[in-house]
């Protein structure tokens, strides 16, 4: 059960969290630049209102790259104006945000094709080519008769 102190004390203000997040992004970007260390900040776990998120987006801006993904619902990813800092937003049911994070990395992993998918794709493309060749041969044979 909460005590009097926990009930009476207010959570940190959103503005304070916004500057805290920006400082963390700066630290992690330095770590990426100097040691190649990647980092992620989960924005949904922080007490940020929509207007604070908007402030954060404006402070980070938009850079050269953006991508729209369609995987179990839409996702949007864009590089901020600081290369290596990416805003990643995954939407779920009726376009509500399921996950929203800042990734500090050269390229977010979700943009790369994963090896198991590449293996499946190679098999699938070969199957398609074989099917195409068979269909074409059958059509040719049918034309001759």
């Amino acid at each position, binding site marked *: *059960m*909460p*005590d*009097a102190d*926990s*009930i*009476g004390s*207010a*959570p940190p203000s959103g503005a304070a969290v916004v500057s805290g997040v920006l400082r963390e992004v700066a630290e992690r970007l330095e770590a990426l630049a100097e040691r190649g260390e*990647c*980092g*992620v*900040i*989960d924005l*949904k*776990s922080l*007490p940020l*209102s929509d207007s604070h998120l908007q402030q954060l987006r404006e402070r980070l801006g938009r850079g050269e790259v953006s991508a729209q*993904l369609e*995987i*179990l*619902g839409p*996702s949007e990813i864009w590089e901020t104006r600081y290369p290596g800092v990416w805003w*990643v937003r*995954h939407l*779920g*049911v*009726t376009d*509500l*945000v*399921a*996950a*929203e*994070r800042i990734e500090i990395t050269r390229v977010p*992993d*979700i943009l790369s094709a*994963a090896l*198991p*998918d590449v293996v*499946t794709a190679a098999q699938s493309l070969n199957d398609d080519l074989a099917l195409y060749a068979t269909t074409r041969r059958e059509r040719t044979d049918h034309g001759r008769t």
Partner: protein
Amino acid sequence: MAEPETIGELLSERGISRRGLLKYAAYLASLMALPPWQSNAIADALAAARRQSVIWLSFQECTGCTESLTRSFSPTLENLIFNLISLDYHETLQAVSGEAAEQARRSAMRDNKGKYIVVVDGSVPTRDGGVYGTVAGQSMLQILNDTAAGAKALIAVGTCAAFGGIPHAQPDPTGAVPLTSLIKDKPIINISGCPPIPEAMAGTIAYLITFGRLPDLDHLNRPKSLFGNTIHDRCYRRSFYDKGLFAKSFDDEGARRGWCLYELGCKGPVTYNSCATLKWNGGVSFPIQSGHGCLGCSEPNFWDKGGFYHPLSTPTGHPTAAVGAAAVAGIGVGAVSALLARRAKREATSTGEKP
């Protein structure tokens, strides 16, 4: 074609790429308060895991918990959970009935001994040998004891299974008890709520599959990631509480302006749950956002704690009275904030600034 052995193979067969798992892992990490950089490892672990056998037992309940889990999702990200589990027994959802259904439960218990998870919704009647609840000629008490014996862990979904809930409310004619009163030798996770938030149920099951262990639990066996804060802690009306601005009735000026519902009986300050952040119906709203105070449905004995519309500081004859006093101290703080806010407004107005 061979049956897929792992979740990764199954998803691939269903046309869901590894990116789908990465997206789900990002969602799960956020939901369960896991370190966000672990999402790649979570996706890998899920891809390599086998589908988790789940036996769902429904006892003294209203089916609201099942409704919550199955009807609140659209076929997108959040229902990926149904690809992660093999729901081997669920009276309401399974196609078979009668002896074939009971056979399905026994087969799952035999084939997955020591590995299956038992999900229970509803409390268990124990009075008079448990005769007030029977399924297929067996008492619920007996079914629970038999099924729990070979389980890896149990999840009590809903306040009835977690704390006894409404069947346990006075005068409790059936001697209804929660799982923790009966099963002492197995890990039990409580996902309380009436009903629980669907994401809380799905997230906990996904956590178990991914890590093969229980998440961190609070003193009432609830995952700390989902029950670590009170509704009040994360309520968007909290700033009104801190300023001492309260609605006095459901149609007064304060209610229309969205002020705090504390004086209308809101139990947010003593209720641990994620309604204020995860919300309901796919994140659309939650009771306080819809203009009604929190009922405290995820806490033990919420039905017997006095009126839903009595403010917490009203003596109820229950242990919450102590918390009520603490909440009054909170109002004291809020009143000072309000005074400061009024003074700031006066000063700002006198200097021509907007408040």
